[in-house]
């Protein structure tokens, strides 16, 4: 039943890449505990959470803490030397299909390699801090046990997803994440708006999931296995093995990833997903939900890199549209969380662009650093919202003094996101730019640099409107309790230093480069990663960031801050365009519904009034004349006579027959039995 594969799977010509990877020790062999533990916590919270002192929070935090320990050990081990271990448990055999004459099987298991270890750790680390934070944030809120149960389910599903050794298990985790996100976004379902947002997120993801499932159905049987490892080996050894199926499958999988990772035009759910409590947003944007699509792309990277190369330009195009066009929306949003949400969409565009262009390391590195500073920013925003009881920046301002910890950590997160040297965001964004440039997407690279400018601009705007100037809200804001501030500090540290892990050409003693340890896969990824810092590109990126910050500060600094000044971006065409979110939501209303309501309806009305009515009136007149004729001659003199006779006969017969109709079911049944018996006897006697 259990077949532990600790080295290259065998079916096709085996790659030799896994030779220098160890199978890890005790912690790698028992990594499944990480996948199971959150589900145990989920059930336990549902069962006993209500009766516990912390309403189940301690169970969720405890499970995540154990996971963090586990993931950290693996993380450190993998930093020192690559680990590869894959365990598959066959649940059911499906049959022999595809190019390999092996049985296609439904398997569950877990995989421990550079990619999944990185994801385990990010999920566990961010998850743990968010859970602790949520313990403070949700104090006194409604349905707390259910909230923490759903959070555990969320994190657990994500761990199942990133630990999946095959596409089927990935889909299981994928759907679990979708379900948990639905539950959490709609946590305050009493308000219609929130439950609408949850439904929107769920449905948008479902649309994309069709792509993922179709891609799986296409690729699995074609390859003869659902395992990622065999996909990698196959792509490495025979890149033309699947032919056109590879491109179709790759695009379908990408469509699935577009939903979870909020790529244009399936991004619409993510800003609305702000309806959930802020810790949920932090978890969703940093670690558990939107990274799933990027993770899928990275996990199936060999498919895109070696087999379905034709698909890549399309993917890069969509990703660049996402990163550039949707980033602008953050410029005009008043809701602080919405600003961050659009920035997430934009950053996901960066990651997707990198992975699609061939920068496995670059995309994942941005995922890694982004997880820290975006979680930090969201938790910071949550801290502010907790203090002023409003999501709108027009109710904030001047919080710098009241909330020093929140302020400083938020600033750290912002400039890290903006990409200022030497913070984490700078290094990862720079690597993406270098990858795009190297892979021949020069125009897109410049667009991405411009995108960095926009990023810096809107983050400066957010910081200025939230923390500088004068307070415009009600009541007296105060710093959040310590249970909420120390996760902020804990996230600020990696937001600053995480970039140092992957400076091209620089390593820190025994700690290997991010490139090396995230590349610990069964087959080397063969992606592009810069060997040395490209200073000119770094300079462009930095200039863009600094220019964005400068412009943002110029426009939104306390001196400039008046109500009209907030709208100083009222560029004639651009501003309304952005306020209405590029009219994507309006597209359906104005583009489809109104034309039907307006001209078409008038046209129909005209036809109805003049053409049809005339016909009907004419027909009516003719009918009336005919009717008079028929009534007078035929009906009264001919037919009535017959009918009256028939009616009289029927009434007479009915009077007799109605005695049979007693309405008693059993008399009917008895008659039925007797009749059936008579028929049987007759039948037997006749034959």
């Amino acid at each position, binding site marked *: 039943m259990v077949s532990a594969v600790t080295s290259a799977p065998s079916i096709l010509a085996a790659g030799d890449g896994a030779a220098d990877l160890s199978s890890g020790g005790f912690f790698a062999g028992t990594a499944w505990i990480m996948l199971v533990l959150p589900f145990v916590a989920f059930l336990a919270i549902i069962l006993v959470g209500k009766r516990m002192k912390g309403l189940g929070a301690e169970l969720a935090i405890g499970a995540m803490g154990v996971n963090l320990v586990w993931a950290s050990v693996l993380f450190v081990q993998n930093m020192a030397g690559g680990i590869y271990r894959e365990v598959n448990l066959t649940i059911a055999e499906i049959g022999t299909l595809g190019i390999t004459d092996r049985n296609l099987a439904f398997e569950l298991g877990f995989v421990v390699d550079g990619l999944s270890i990185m994801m385990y750790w990010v999920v566990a680390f961010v998850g743990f801090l968010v859970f602790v934070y949520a313990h403070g944030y949700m104090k006194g809120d409604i349905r707390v046990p259910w909230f923490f149960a759903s959070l555990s389910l969320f994190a657990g599903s994500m761990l199942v997803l990133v630990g999946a050794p095959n596409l089927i298990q990935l889909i299981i985790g994928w759907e679990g994440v979708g379900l948990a996100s639905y539950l959490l976004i709609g946590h305050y379902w009493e308000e219609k708006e929130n439950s609408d947002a949850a439904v929107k997120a769920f449905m948008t993801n479902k649309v994309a999931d069709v792509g993922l499932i179709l891609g799986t159905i296409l690729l699995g049987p074609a390859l003869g296995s659902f395992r990622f490892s065999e996909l990698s080996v196959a792509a490495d050894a025979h890149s033309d093995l699947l032919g056109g199926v590879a491109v179709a499958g790759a695009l379908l999988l990408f469509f699935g990833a577009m939903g979870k990772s909020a790529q244009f035009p399936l991004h619409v759910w993510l800003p609305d997903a702000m309806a959930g409590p802020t810790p949920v947003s932090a978890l969703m944007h940093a670690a558990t939900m939107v990274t799933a699509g990027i993770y899928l792309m990275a996990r199936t990277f060999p498919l895109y890199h070696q087999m379905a190369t034709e698909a890549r330009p399309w993917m890069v195009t969509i990703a660049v549209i996402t990163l550039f066009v949707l980033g602008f929306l953050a410029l005009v949003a008043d809701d602080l969380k919405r600003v961050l949400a659009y920035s997430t969409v934009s950053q996901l565009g960066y990651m997707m662009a990198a992975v699609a262009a061939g920068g496995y390391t670059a995309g994942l590195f941005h995922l890694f650093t982004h997880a820290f500073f975006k979680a930090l920013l969201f938790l910071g925003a949550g801290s502010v919202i907790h203090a002023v009881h409003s999501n709108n920046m027009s109710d904030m301002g001047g919080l710098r003094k009241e909330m020093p910890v929140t302020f400083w950590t938020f600033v750290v997160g912002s400039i890290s996101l903006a990409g200022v040297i030497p913070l984490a965001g700078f290094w990862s964004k720079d690597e993406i730019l270098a990858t795009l440039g190297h892979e021949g997407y020069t125009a897109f690279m410049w667009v991405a640099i411009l995108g960095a400018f926009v990023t810096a601009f809107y983050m400066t705007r957010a910081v200025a409107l939230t923390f500088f100037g004068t307070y415009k809200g009600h009541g007296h804001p105060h710093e959040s309790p310590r249970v909420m501030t120390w996760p902020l500090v804990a996230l600020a540290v990696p937001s600053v230093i995480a970039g140092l892990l992957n400076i091209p050409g620089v390593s820190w003693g025994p700690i290997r480069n991010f490139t090396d340890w995230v590349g610990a896969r069964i087959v080397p990824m063969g992606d592009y990663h810069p060997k040395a810092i490209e200073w000119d590109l770094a300079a462009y990126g930095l200039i863009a960031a600094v220019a964005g910050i400068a412009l943002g500060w110029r426009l939104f600094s306390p001196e400039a801050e008046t109500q009209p000044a907030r709208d100083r971006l009222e560029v004639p065409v651009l501003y309304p365009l952005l306020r209405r979110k590029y009219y994507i939501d309006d597209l359906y209303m104005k583009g489809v519904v109104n034309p039907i309501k307006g001209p078409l309806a008038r046209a129909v009305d005209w036809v109805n009034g003049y053409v049809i009515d005339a016909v009907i009136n004419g027909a009516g007149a003719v009918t009336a004349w005919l009717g008079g004729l028929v009534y007078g001659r035929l009906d009264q003199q001919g037919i009535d006579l017959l009918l009256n006779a028939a009616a009289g006969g029927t009434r007479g017969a009915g009077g007799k027959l109605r005695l049979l109709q007693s309405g008693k079911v*059993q008399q009917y049944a008895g008659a039925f039995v007797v009749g059936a018996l008579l028929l049987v006897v007759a039948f037997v006697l006749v034959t």
Partner: protein
Amino acid sequence: MVLSQFLILGALMFSIGVYGLLSRRNAVTVLLAVELMLAAVNINLIAFEAFWNTAAAHGQIFAIFVITIAAAEVGIGLAIILLVFRNRASGNIDQLDLMRW
């Protein structure tokens, strides 16, 4: 064992079921009688299966079909009885004379 003994037993059971079906007033007991009739059919099916001894066990398959349908029938039947009871505050079948002229 011979086939006839099972067939006669089935006939006996079926007749008892018919008696119950026609003589009972309470709707639930009428349904019980219907179950008896179905059980009688099952005995016949299984006995014939043992008699013809086919490799594919058609008789047993049909017996299972019968059991399944019977379960569905009970479900619907009880639901109807419940509805009737709610509307008429009685479980007696002879008050269900809405079909009368």
